[in-house]
C-alpha cells in the first residue's frame, strides 16, 4: 500500500455532470483525439493554486448543480468558477479560498446562481490513471475516467506530489493578484446584458453573404439547452451563407461554425478534431472561460477584434 492510498473522497451527490479535468491532451489532434481539459482554465488553475497544487493538477468540474463529497482524510480544498454557495457540514464556507476539510466532513457546492461550472481542487490532486498524459474525461470520445456517480470513491495524490507539474500552458494563468471571486461573465438573469465575446476571422468567413462577419456584431444569440462540453449551440437571427459543402478540415477551440439553418456552433474543449461546416469566426482564447460559464438561455453578442484579425 502506498502512502497516498488512503487519501480518498467519497461522492455523496454527483450532480448533473461532474468530471475529472486537467489541461487535456494537446498534441494528439492528428490522431483524432480532442483537446479536452477544464473548460474554464483560469478557474482550474486558481483552484489548484489555492490548495498548493501545481496549476495543471486534476480537479473536479461540475455542471450547474454542483456536487457533494465527504473527505475520508484531512485535506485542503478550494472551490472556484461559477457563483455557488459552499457548505461544510451544512455551515457556510468560503468560496474561492483554501479550506481545511477534516476527515468525515461533508463539502457541498450548491447549484450555481450564475455561471455553469465549478472547480474543486483538493491538495494532492485527483489521482486517476492518465490517458495520453491527461486525467481529463473526454465526453466526445470516451477517453479518460467516467463521469462521477453517487457513491464513487476517488483517490487523491500525495499532497507533496508532483502530479501535474508539467504539461499546462502557464501563459493561461491568471495574474497572481486576481481575487478569488465568482465569475461575472454569465448573466442568466439578463440583468447585466449579454456576454460579449471577442471574435477573429475564421478560415471560411467568406462563406457569409450580405454584411459578412459584421452581421455577427449586429445580432444577439441565445445559448441553447443542448450545449455541452463539446460546444455551445447558439440560436438567433440566421446568417445568410453560401450554399454547398466543404471537405472536413481541422478545428481549433473557439471555432464558430455557421450551420445551413443559420444557427451557430461554438466549439469548446471536447470538440471533434475536424468538421465540415464552414468556420466563419474564432472566439479569442481569453473569452473561452466566459463561454464555459454561459448558461443555457443566456444571451451572447460578438465584437470583432481590432487589428488585423
Amino acid at each position, binding site marked *: 500500500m502506498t502512502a497516498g492510498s488512503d487519501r480518498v473522497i467519497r461522492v455523496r451527490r454527483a450532480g448533473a455532470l461532474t468530471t475529472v479535468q486537467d489541461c487535456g491532451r494537446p498534441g*494528439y*489532434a492528428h490522431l483524432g483525439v480532442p483537446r479536452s481539459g477544464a473548460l474554464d482554465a483560469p478557474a482550474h488553475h486558481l483552484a489548484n493554486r489555492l490548495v498548493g497544487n501545481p496549476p495543471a493538477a486534476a480537479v473536479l468540474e461540475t455542471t450547474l448543480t454542483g456536487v457533494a463529497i465527504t473527505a475520508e482524510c484531512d485535506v485542503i480544498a478550494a472551490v472556484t468558477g461559477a457563483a455557488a454557495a459552499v457548505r461544510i457540514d451544512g455551515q457556510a464556507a468560503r468560496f474561492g479560498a483554501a479550506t481545511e476539510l477534516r476527515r468525515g466532513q461533508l463539502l457541498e457546492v450548491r447549484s450555481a446562481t450564475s455561471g455553469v461550472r465549478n472547480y474543486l481542487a483538493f491538495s494532492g490532486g485527483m489521482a486517476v490513471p492518465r*490517458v495520453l498524459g491527461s486525467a481529463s474525461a473526454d465526453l466526445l470520445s470516451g477517453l479518460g475516467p467516467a463521469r462521477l456517480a453517487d457513491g464513487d470513491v476517488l483517490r487523491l495524490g500525495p499532497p507533496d506530489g508532483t502530479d501535474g507539474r508539467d504539461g499546462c500552458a502557464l501563459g493561461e494563468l491568471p495574474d497572481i493578484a486576481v481575487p478569488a471571486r465568482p465569475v461575472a461573465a454569465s448573466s442568466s438573469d439578463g440583468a447585466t446584458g449579454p456576454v460579449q465575446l471577442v471574435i477573429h476571422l475564421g478560415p471560411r468567413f467568406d462563406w457569409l453573404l450580405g454584411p459578412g462577419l459584421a452581421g455577427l456584431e449586429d445580432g444577439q444569440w441565445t445559448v441553447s439547452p443542448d450545449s455541452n462540453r463539446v460546444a455551445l449551440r447558439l440560436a438567433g437571427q440566421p446568417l445568410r451563407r453560401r450554399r454547398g459543402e466543404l471537405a472536413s*478540415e481541422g478545428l*481549433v477551440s473557439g471555432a464558430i461554425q455557421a450551420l445551413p439553418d443559420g444557427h451557430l456552433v461554438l466549439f469548446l474543449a471536447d470538440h471533434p*478534431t*475536424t468538421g465540415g461546416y464552414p468556420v466563419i*469566426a474564432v472566439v479569442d482564447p481569453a473569452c473561452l472561460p466566459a463561454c464555459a460559464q454561459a448558461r443555457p438561455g443566456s444571451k451572447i453578442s460578438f465584437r470583432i477584434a481590432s487589428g488585423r484579425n
Partner: protein
Amino acid sequence: MRFRPAGPSALLVEVDSLPRVRALHARIERERACGWAPGLVDVIAAARTVLLDGVTDQDALASEIRSWSVPPHPEASGQVVEIACRYDGPDLGEVARQWGVPPERVAAVHSGLAHEVAFCGFAPGFPYIAGLGGGREVSRRDRPRAAVPAGSVALGDEYTGIYPRTSPGGWQIIGHTDAVMWDPDRDPAALLRPGDQVRFVNVMP
C-alpha cells in the same frame, strides 16, 4: 496554396488535392522534426487542408511555407501495415453496384488498390485511408446507421475507414477486421497514422 487565418493563433493552409495535402504535411513534419515552429501544438491534415494550431506569427509562417518547394506527389513516408479483412459487410452489394462489378469482385478490387492513411479524425484512431480515387469513390448511405460495430471496414468518398469503436456512421460497410485500431495503453495508441501505407488482405469469413 492559400493561407487562411483560423483565429489569432492558427493557420489553415489550403491546397488543391489530397496528394498535395500529403506532400505538404510530410514536409511540415520533416521540418518540425528539425525544430521548426516550436510553438505548434497540433498539426491536422485533412482532405484539402493542413491546420497549424499554435502559430505566433501567421504572416511569417505563411511566407516561409510559400517559399518551400513541395513536390505535387509525396514519396511514401510511413510504415506498411497489413489489415486482415473479412469482406462480409452488409453494403457489399451497394458498393458493387456503384463500382459496376459483381459483389464477389469487391474484395479483389478493394484489396488490390494502393491505400495510404491521409489523416485521422472523427474518433480517436479513426483513419481516413485514401485509395479510392480514379472513379472508385463511394457515396455514403442515405441514412446513417445508429451503431456501426467496432472493426467495421467501410467506404466513403475517396476513403476507406475502420471504426475503432462502435459509433454512428454513414459509410458503406464492406467488411470487418480484428485489428485493434486504438489502444490508449499502447504506444502509439493509434494503429494507423497519417502517411502509413495500408495493405488490405482478404481473409475468408
